[in-house]
């Protein structure tokens, strides 16, 4: 992908994000990403509000239409496709793990986890770490085929380690690059690369 499409792509995944966050996901220098974003705003492909950017609907559709061209090789790459399928399998466990983080099974009923039970929280974070270790070879295989994707593995590890160190917001807070936020962005990235639709 050229720099313009990379920035469009990153802005589509990291919606309503400021320029530095879009640059990091696109794997471009911050100044270059900012220039591209300004050009996209000037040409009506993106809008900016309070320092955050979003694609206009038409630019989003046009970008989707170019994915088939950009990712044709990856879609045929057996190793990449196998890694993607591995990701989808682990994704089922990830969703259950995050749900177990947010809820407690109390006598057979699911209630909101208010994080007053330390043992439960530690056990779930330990499971998240075990899941991350299972995901590492997959993240490695994805990045081997498309080096830009190493961004996700780095961000996931950083979120996991922050959570392990007791900063629990890094598990699933939606307003930061928590483990769940980055995982879902990677899922979105992979769905776009593969040309698939999200199931739920």
């Amino acid at each position, binding site marked *: 992908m050229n720099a313009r499409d990379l920035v469009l792509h990153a802005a589509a995944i990291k919606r309503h994000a400021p320029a530095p966050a879009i640059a990091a996901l696109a794997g471009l220098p911050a100044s270059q990403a900012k220039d591209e974003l300004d050009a996209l705003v000037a040409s009506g492909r993106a809008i900016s509000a309070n320092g955050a950017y979003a694609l206009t609907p038409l630019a989003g559709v046009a970008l989707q239409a170019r994915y088939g061209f950009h990712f044709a090789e990856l879609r045929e790459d057996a190793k990449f496709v196998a890694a993607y399928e591995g990701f989808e399998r682990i994704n089922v466990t990830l969703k259950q793990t995050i749900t177990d983080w947010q809820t407690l099974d109390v006598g057979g009923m699911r209630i909101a986890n208010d*994080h007053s039970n330390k043992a439960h929280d530690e056990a779930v974070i330990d499971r998240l770490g075990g899941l991350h270790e299972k995901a590492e070879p997959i993240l490695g295989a994805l990045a081997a085929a498309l080096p830009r994707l190493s961004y996700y593995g780095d961000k996931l590890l950083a979120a996991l380690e922050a959570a392990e160190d007791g900063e629990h917001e890094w598990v699933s807070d939606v307003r930061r690059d928590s483990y769940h936020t980055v995982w879902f962005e990677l899922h979105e990235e992979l769905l776009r690369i593969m040309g698939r639709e999200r199931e739920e």
Partner: protein
Amino acid sequence: MAQWTVLLGGSGLPDCALPDRALVGGKAWSIARMAALGLDVPPAFVIGTAACNAYLGAGHFPDGLEAEIDDGIAWLEAHTGRTFGRGDKRLLLSIRSGAAISMPGMMDTVLNLGIDEGGEAALAAETGLPVFAADTQRRFHELFAAIVPDGPATGSVRGQLHAAVRAVFDSWNTRRARRYRDHNGIAHDLGTAVTIQAMVFGNLDETSGTGVLFSRNPLNGDPVPYGEYLPRAQGEDVVSGKFTPLGLDAMLSHVPQAHAALLEASALLERENGDVQDIEFTVQSGRLYLLQSRSAKRAPAAAVRIAVDMVDEGRVDAATALSRVSAEQVSTLLLPHLAPGASEGAELLASGEGACPGVASGILVSDPDEAERRAAAGEAVVLVRATTSPDDVHGMIAARAVVTEQGGSTSHAAVVSRALGRPCVVGTGAGAQARAGALVTVDGAGGKVYAGALPTKTPHEDDHPYLARLIAWARELSPVTVVRSGIGASPAGIDIDRVVGEGGTEALAEALAGQSAAYGSGLSNPEIARIARRSGVTAMTTDPILPALLVALES
């Protein structure tokens, strides 16, 4: 005298004094403690942390450890009347790591070690359940291969046991465990213990079973034991959800003696530990074995009732009771809910799975950008989508509630709504988006979307019998004065609601620097009260007051 291992009681008779928790780890210690209380636990022995350190230093088992493991197995055989790796009544083992401090990255449990081809046949003959025996063998191999990748999957069970012990020792030095210790200032030479326990069979015959008992009801706090029992089943069957567990009445009729022993154990463990217990147990041929007992997780309503009851029963003091109720639990109890009878006669627009509790009303909007725009203009909106993706998060933040047509309780919409605290209903089926434009009320607990804005009721803390008691105790003990808004003189200090309204919570710490008093409804939010508390505020005015009081009492 054993150098590396400790025997942990067995059939109700303590074989040794309570061991040092630092040497045997938390799990072994609690087994020993239950045994010391005279309760039946499956016999076990533990390899202490000294053996772990010797192994990690030398790269092989220290002299004498293998012989002591053999002795431990012989002791388990004598206590259970079973034999390890031979005979027609097989001894199967669980192997668990157990450091004095729990940490991430340590090895998971290996179950059913001791089963092999002959063991499968013996187990099938003994239980009359060939499918179960084959399943046990398969589950063991899966778990063993995942946890001990270089271990002998076939071969002698003794070799497998040694490989599992080495895997536990080695897990002390996984990258995650090392990093955790570095970050938390935990010494690298503490080492982990390994607990080796005989497995009991809840599916051996008609007088066997397995279950979970809470010493009080964990949902509403009723001071009555509450539990589930699954006759002729193993623990994995309960977790799998393939079987519907029965109530304790069923246990009473199947295995009355074990039922009586369980209720006695429940009362004893609750008294000894001074808190509600969650007890895992198995009944093998009519005899009760306790597998684990720990403080029970509980719903908010149960937390407040149990705290007050235990003070009234003289089991704990007020300070302990207050430490067992979180500010968040109280906030949850005070959330608005549908007024009694409000949903009667209301048109049910859609119904699905409740993914995040709470009630909210607003205009149904099917586009996240539109939701954000209309919410910014002051309108209450409810976002409805087929499914959600990261593209929708800004709309979910803006909305009062979220509804999706597809997906279940682990879907993106469910996870994000819970993270945001938005009432959420998922999986309503097609048609919900077509109702965009309608004014609706979402009941996130019941999984319902009603037409119109239904009346809600917000409980008041003073009207709640248990909360009122907690408030009285907390006022006496709190280092912070918390006054209810609207009482007495105009409130002193800084206006929290104005600061949050203008600059968000990020601006709070700065605005509060050097302030000793603050007021505003925002202080009833535990997170905001914590920021104020950390900034040194000692006088708060808000409504309700109990969440702020509990924050003030947090250590």
